[in-house]
């Protein structure tokens, strides 16, 4: 019987790890967009939320766990991709999809490309916000004015375009990724699988579209509507 470490280096064990980490990142995205949506309620609400979040002593621990999840997901997918490339050294001259019940889509065929784009995006995103300019809220000691940072970051049309494209890519990655994550964990059921597939696509649209909406709202209205 395999050792515990070797378990995760087989093809099935690799998919298990990718599925677990992928679904964990999906849950993170849901909480992320739920928090960001508070920007629609105005500057004070948003800053109170972000202050409550970042001042929580557990946040550094959660950040490290999140980083580890990210790194495992990236490492396992990239090494799996390279291995899979070797599995067919001579390509077909003509190849096409058979169609239903195949779930193949542009999204499923481009997971490695969308994934690597998102890796670059996350670096730029974290640099721009977590490690971006520090503005203090007037009259509140030690409270960071993240609302102002968001507005300033999204003033540049180039930055907005980069975010919109990146969020379309997030949507594409989730379109295949969410249901695929469940499948990789061995969850398949005649009644539930069609629902999981629909759920994955719905959340891909909601999350990708939701972030785009927030970006455009901040860019066009400076996050000031409803103040």
């Amino acid at each position, binding site marked *: 019987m395999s050792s*515990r470490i070797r378990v995760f280096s087989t*093809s*099935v064990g*690799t998919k298990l790890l990718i599925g677990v980490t992928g679904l964990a990142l999906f849950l993170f995205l849901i909480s992320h967009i739920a928090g960001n949506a508070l920007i629609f309620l105005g500057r004070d609400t948003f800053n109170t939320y972000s202050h409550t979040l970042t001042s929580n002593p557990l946040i550094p621990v959660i950040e490290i766990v999140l980083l580890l999840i990210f790194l495992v997901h990236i490492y396992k997918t990239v090494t799996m991709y390279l291995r*899979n490339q070797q599995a*067919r050294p001579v390509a077909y001259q003509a190849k096409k999809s*058979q169609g239903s*019940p195949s779930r193949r889509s542009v999204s499923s065929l481009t997971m490695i490309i969308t994934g690597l784009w998102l890796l670059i995006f996350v670096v730029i995103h974290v640099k721009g916000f977590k490690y971006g300019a520090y503005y203090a809220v007037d009259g509140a000691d030690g409270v960071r004015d993240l609302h102002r940072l968001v507005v300033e970051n999204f003033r540049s049309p180039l930055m907005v375009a980069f975010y919109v494209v990146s969020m379309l890519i997030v949507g594409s990655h989730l379109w295949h990724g969410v249901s695929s994550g469940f499948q990789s964990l061995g969850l*398949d059921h005649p009644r539930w699988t069609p629902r999981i597939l629909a759920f994955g696509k719905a959340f891909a649209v909601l999350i990708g579209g939701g972030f785009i909406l927030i970006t455009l709202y901040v860019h066009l209205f400076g996050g000031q509507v409803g103040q």
Partner: protein
Amino acid sequence: MRLNLKIWRQAGPNAAGRLVDYVAENVSPDMSFLEMLDVVNESLLRKGEESIAFDSDCREGICGMCSLVVNGVPHGPDRGTTVCQLHMRRFKDGDTITIEPWRARAFPVVKDLVVDRSAFDRIIAAGGYVSINCGGAPDGNAIPIPKDVAEAAMDSAQCIACGACVAACKNASAHLFMSAKISQLALLPQGDAERERRVVAMIEQADAEGFGSCSNEAECEAVCPKEIPISNIAKMTREYVRAVLAAK
């Protein structure tokens, strides 16, 4: 019918291959795809040329020998059929048809359209069997198996090991093939005794053969002549988790 064929010709395992153009004349719509190739081969032999090598045996869709990628789809355009059961009425006069072998590192080309699928045999030899000694034939009703369980096991047992799942998968993964055998045996009491050992051994053997990992696209299910669903792969994953947790 008159058809334009582009057929993969490769002299041997290490030779470079290429698509060669042929014209198939007087093709009857009632011919099977392989009969059409037989006619092409006869005309090649008459001209003193070497015939096109391709695999076939039963020609009734149950042995799993035939293995052609027709216009980019393993076993051709019909669902739930092997290429020997594909008929020329599916094509139109003047069509161009591209014919290639299965392509995977673990399925090296022997010649032209013939590939070596003994990697599948080695996966089965790693654990796809029941080795418990059960003595003489037991009474038919001594081991009760519910009808729905027997049906599910039979659905998985339909796999004819043709390798179309590998040919269709973008990762050349053998997961559908392995999982069909693993599911079939895990469902039955006879297979239960060795289920943990079996799933681990078969997965490790498939990885060693150089097959890729599952893409979750279900392209394999779409081309499988026996329409075996990828729910078998999920079942294999659950068996694997069970085996890992039960490891001593």
